[in-house]
């Protein structure tokens, strides 16, 4: 049975080189950069360096997963790194009090969930603007983190736990953390591209009224997305607590820009103009390669910062010129 009425099953996009480059250009660039760097600097692919990079990618990628979807739904969350900072303090406090890493991790997760729920409630149900709301809640979280440490960080003695073991485990050169992260991203991609979740997520950004008219609750979804973002940040926070062996209220600064840069740069990968998990992962990897290469080339920190900022600005310009070419120019 051939379908006569639904003629063009797939639009002929295969030969559209420009479209292909727009979708995968960034990914291609990343691969070329890695190949180039490893030829230029043989120790770039050195086991230690790779492991360091992969571990960094793992933690960052986990932290920014929720953020990716919050931005995809048309909102923004700038409290994620403060949430991670607070999580390190909560987790470290619980561990320091002798309750062990399991209790510490659960307390950390609860921190993220509560903060995310606060954001989600204020944005989704109370209708407050997401940027101001999350600036405020982020600041609140950060302040609470300092309060927990009475103005200082909270070092942990040799109280290793399962989180340490998890971080220390590697399969060959690949850390277990990276494998788990990739698995989580694979699941996330499935939910985003194959399940109803992803469809409603992007629809929320395009036309919230259509979503509501279809009988879905936009408020509830917003709440869920913010809670998920909080949880992702707190998972990263727990890992960082173990990694740094301390609670760090000052954590954040670089993660903030990295997060937004990775997610928004990621919006030029695969789905033009839409933040998505594959894009975020690519963005995180890009930043990790940049940091690693920069360190080897002896760049000052600021060079990296300038590159990041410029890349983000270029990304925005690319996205918007592509979108405009696509004929959505009438929006203000």
């Amino acid at each position, binding site marked *: 049975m051939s*379908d006569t*009425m*639904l*003629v*063009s*099953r*797939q*639009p002929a996009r295969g030969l559209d080189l420009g479209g292909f480059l727009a979708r995968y250009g960034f990914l291609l660039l990343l691969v070329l950069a890695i190949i180039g760097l490893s030829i230029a600097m043989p120790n770039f692919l050195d086991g230690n360096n790779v492991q360091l990079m992969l571990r960094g990618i793992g933690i960052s990628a986990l932290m920014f997963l929720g953020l990716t979807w919050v931005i995809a739904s048309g909102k923004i969350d700038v409290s994620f790194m403060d949430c991670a900072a607070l999580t390190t303090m909560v987790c470290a406090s619980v561990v320091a009090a002798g309750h062990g890493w399991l209790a510490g991790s659960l307390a950390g997760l609860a921190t993220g969930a509560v903060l995310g729920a606060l954001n989600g409630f204020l944005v989704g149900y109370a209708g407050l603007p997401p940027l101001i709301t999350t600036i405020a809640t982020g600041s609140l979280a950060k302040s609470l983190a300092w309060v927990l440490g009475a103005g200082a960080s909270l070092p942990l003695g040799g109280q290793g736990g399962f989180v340490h073991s998890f971080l220390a485990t590697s399969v060959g050169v690949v850390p277990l953390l990276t494998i788990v992260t990739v698995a989580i991203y694979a699941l996330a991609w499935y*939910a985003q591209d*194959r*399940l*109803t*979740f992803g*469809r*409603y997520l*992007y*629809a929320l950004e*395009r*036309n919230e*009224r*259509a*979503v509501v*008219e*279809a*009988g*879905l609750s936009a408020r509830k*979804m917003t709440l*869920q997305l913010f809670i998920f973002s909080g949880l992702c940040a707190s998972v990263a926070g727990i890992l960082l607590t173990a990694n740094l062996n301390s609670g760090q209220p000052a954590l954040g600064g670089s993660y903030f820009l990295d997060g937004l840069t990775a997610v928004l740069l990621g919006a030029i990968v695969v789905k033009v103009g839409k933040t998505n998990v594959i894009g975020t992962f690519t963005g995180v990897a890009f930043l990790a390669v940049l940091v690693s290469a920069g360190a080897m080339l002896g760049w000052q920190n600021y060079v990296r910062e300038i590159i990041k900022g410029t890349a983000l600005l270029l990304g925005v310009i690319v996205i918007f010129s592509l979108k405009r070419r*696509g*004929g*959505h120019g009438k929006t203000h």
Partner: protein
Amino acid sequence: MTNPVLRMRGIQKRFGPVKALDGVDFTLAQGEIHALLGTNGAGKSTLVKIISGLYQKDDGTIEIAGQEVEIASPADAMAKGIAAVQQHPELIDDLTGVENIFFGHEGANPGLFRRIRTNDMRKRAQDLLKRFPIDIDLDRPVAEMGAVDREIVAVLQALTGDHIRVLILDEPTSTLTEREKASLYQLMRALKEGGISIIYITHRLEEVFEIADRLTVFRGGRNVVSMSSTEARDGATSLVEHLLGEAPGDLYPALADTPPGEVLLDVQHLTAQGAFRDITLQARRGEILGVYGLVGSGLDELSKALFGTFDVDSGRVTFKGREGLFASPTEALKAGIFLVPGDRRTEGLAMSDDVVFNTVLANLGRASRPGGLMRWARPRRATAELAERLALQPPILSKRAREFSGGNQQKIVIAKGLYAQADLYIFVEPTVGVDIGAKAKLYAVMRELAAEAAVIVMSSDGDEVHGLADRLIGLYRGAVVYDAPNGPGARDRLLASGMMGKLAA
């Protein structure tokens, strides 16, 4: 004899002091296409909103298939087999037709984490198209679709519920191309074949003759007449008469009694692809030029082109001896053109600001000292004078624009125009949502303005144009089809030209 699908008797609906529906009877037979006709405010959209559950009737009975029912909400209407498709359906641009049709029902069960059953959706879409054979490529994103195709998607979305018996279809806003018209008719015939009754709201009479089985004419909140469209076609003029009724009397000020002054605006062969073509008109000082055109006639675009916010392809415009279109409203205002836009909420007013703020906005130079500092007392005094002249109600200058009624909001926009001291005023749909008392006042002001300036009134209310203007232009699908001075018999010719694109006999 079978029961009609829908029978309404003695429907009453009031909004405050206004009787929107005054004892309306309406019957819809199984599988018929029933057109509702009437000018703005005639009551057809109120009736439709009662049927689709958006409004509640004050009095009267509704029967569906012989059973008396109450329709409490749009969801309730859906449950009873009535679906309404809005003029601007809520669709998601990036998704394809199929994806939009089944939006919210992609999985086997409702829920966030269900597999999207692409093949199943595709199959169901084909089944729908088998039931209602229509040519449409449902694999395109709706962003790439025209108005009619979007409407078809919305209709199919509504029809995924198998129990729908009555479909309410609003005329798509834009002008239809021949292809679009064909697919719209195809849709309607297919639905009819499928046993669905359609209530079709339109302004365009020719469409009624082509597609509708029956029609009902509304005027002043009553159903005036129902007839089959063949009957209507044979006596087209009488239908126009039913639509229009008597010309309303003393709502309008007297026409100009002095000959018009010099030509201020001279438009020659102005064309903008897809909006209007070959427009030629002149606006003279001391005269009101009326342009009548329905939605999709290019009226709105024309007004915006003259004001510097819409690009044209060819033609020549001369204003006060200076040739060329204006690049922006800033320039148009400087030269002396003021536009009272059709959508005052989004285009005309800063709704959260007060009367003085809005009044002086288009001429800040006059409201400030040479250095750019705002004057305090003078703009206030000038605003107070304008408010009095326009009979602004309530005359409280510190009230926000939002807190005024529609008619008084329009008065604020006009006050802004008066403060700008323009030489040419263009009014677009000046009295939409304005009550009758305020209307008379607005008309008087427009006539007063015409004493010193040129005035163009562009409206889809033919009586308004005819009542006000000294010279009449009928615009139909982007072209001038009628151009004559106002006089005896001009009304019917103007209205017929705007509705049908040709002059009635």
